């Protein structure tokens, strides 16, 4: 399970909407409980460094990655994963996502449809290098 602080969730959605129709991307920071529950306390928005069509692809530069690792160290957080948006596509990982995915990381996908309808889902790679959904704890409903 992954818990995303409501204010952090808002930041992610804001980034996704502001970047629409391009894909946005960034890092997730927080801590991991002993039972494996992840709590996202902050994000770091970074540039989509993909050259060419950013509406369908994202890429994070290695220097931004190193900054993120340092950022986690400075705040005594764990780098929990990456978020990115799928403009006009569901929040389901694509084959591009799977091929480039790292073990351990939570991949939060923000689906933005027509710049207004937002869905968030999180995914984790399993041992077979396939994505499994990681439940996002729901703050919206009982």
């Amino acid at each position, binding site marked *: 399970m992954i818990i995303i602080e409501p204010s952090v969730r808002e930041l992610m959605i804001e980034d996704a909407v502001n970047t629409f129709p391009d894909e946005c991307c960034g890092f997730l920071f927080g801590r991991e409980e002993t039972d494996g529950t992840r709590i996202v306390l902050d994000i770091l928005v970074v540039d989509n460094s*993909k050259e060419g069509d950013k509406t*369908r692809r994202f890429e994070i530069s290695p220097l931004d990655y190193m900054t993120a690792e340092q950022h*986690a160290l400075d705040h005594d957080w764990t780098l929990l994963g990456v978020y990115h948006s799928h403009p006009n*596509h569901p929040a389901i990982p694509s084959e591009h996502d799977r091929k480039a995915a790292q073990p*351990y*990381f939570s991949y939060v996908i923000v689906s933005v449809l027509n710049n207004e309808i937002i869905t968030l889902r999180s995914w984790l790679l399993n041992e077979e290098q396939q994505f499994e959904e990681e439940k996002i704890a729901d703050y*919206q409903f*009982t």
Partner: protein
Amino acid sequence: MATVIIPTPLRKFTNNTARLEVGAGTIHDTVQELTLNFPDLKKHLLDEGGNIRSYVNIFVGNDDIRNLQQERTAVGKDAVISIVPAIAGGSPDAEPGAAASAPHGFSKEELARYNRHIIIPGFGMESQQKLKAAKVLVIGSGGLGSPVLLYLAAAGIGTIGIVDFDVVDDSNLQRQVLFGVDEIGKPKVEAARRRLEALNPYIRLNIYNTHLNSQNALDIMKDYDVIADGTDNFPTRYLVNDAAVLLGKTNVYASIFQFEGQVSVFNYPDEQGNRGPNYRDLYPTPPPPGLVPSCAEGGVLGVLPGIIGSLQALEVIKVITRVGDTLSGRFYIFDALNFESRTFNIRSREDNPINGKNPSITGLIDYEQFCGMRAVEEKPLKEVTAKELYDWQVRGEKFQLIDVREPHEFDIVNIGAELIPLATVAANAEKIDRDRKVVVHCKMGGRSAKAIRELEEKFGFTNLYNLKGGILAYIDEVQPELTKY
């Protein structure tokens, strides 16, 4: 000794160590040393040929070794080497609803998905293309809507609209197979979208979390080719029928009650463009109020909407593809108790008030008045915000505070309320005061609303207030020092 910084995702292969000391030499030597000491790292760093994987970047200081001497780059004794995974991804290539580059309009993935349709003689690519181009509006995502939506989404209807105002209730799960326990309390259209997105990412889903009524029906329905009516009440059924006739849309109708189901296709144009009969040709006027109970009152066997909804989905597909003979002009009845099916012929009536010889209805009317009943029975709950509740507490106003969460939640955090978990509310009704205000709360307001409805319906309480946003809102607005969960 040089230092290697291991990225977070790979630390589980290095006993959770972030920084490792290695001997000097070249990057090649460093990688050899790492994979020797931590064999699990190997497949993440090196490909089958023993070369550094394309998506692994290695930096010495701030320089990519690709810009230095690659694997031969020297590693000084004070060097800091960073292993940096490439982070990238993107959306799937097939754009839902838009034609892919191939002439048939399908991506490779879609062709694989729809293969068993495409190979049916007499159906083929042409029918699959019609499904992809079609826009179907499903009204009601409950018992009938669940199988209809699941099969239409799976079949590759290009655009599906879903209208429902309701939230998922535990009494729905016996037949509404779109939903699971995790969705209880959530809007049905939201839960349906999640499920259908996971089922078929190559289609477009539009959701309308609203009551369909005379004010919005034409606007919502006008953009669709076919309507599938899975509503559970007469006012909405006449509304959908009349709006479909006025807009010239085919209405695939189904309904269920206890052990019996009905299916038909209304207002369907034949090859010459002549429209078939509609619901008012079958039933010009609704039954007297109270004569026919709804599923909520009369019950329904859970598998029945599965059968009838599947037949409804079948007719939607036949209407779109024009494969086979639809139920236009016919009315099908299935009796689950004796396993009998009957099909009656129905004909257009000259006195049909909406499209007969002298139509008296030229626009949508008040269907609740027409049927003498409400489409939806519920009235709004009385609510109190966290701030108002705090004001009551400060002013010393007399009220009782009830918490309907579970004991383990109460143990995490509580605001001094009396604990009566939702499932035990009816059994403990006598503990709830009638002579002063009673505020009921849960985590976010869903369960407490349910508790209030139950207490009002079964015991006639009139003094119950729902805490808006539940204990989480109270913590946010009044006592931020309390634990949130």
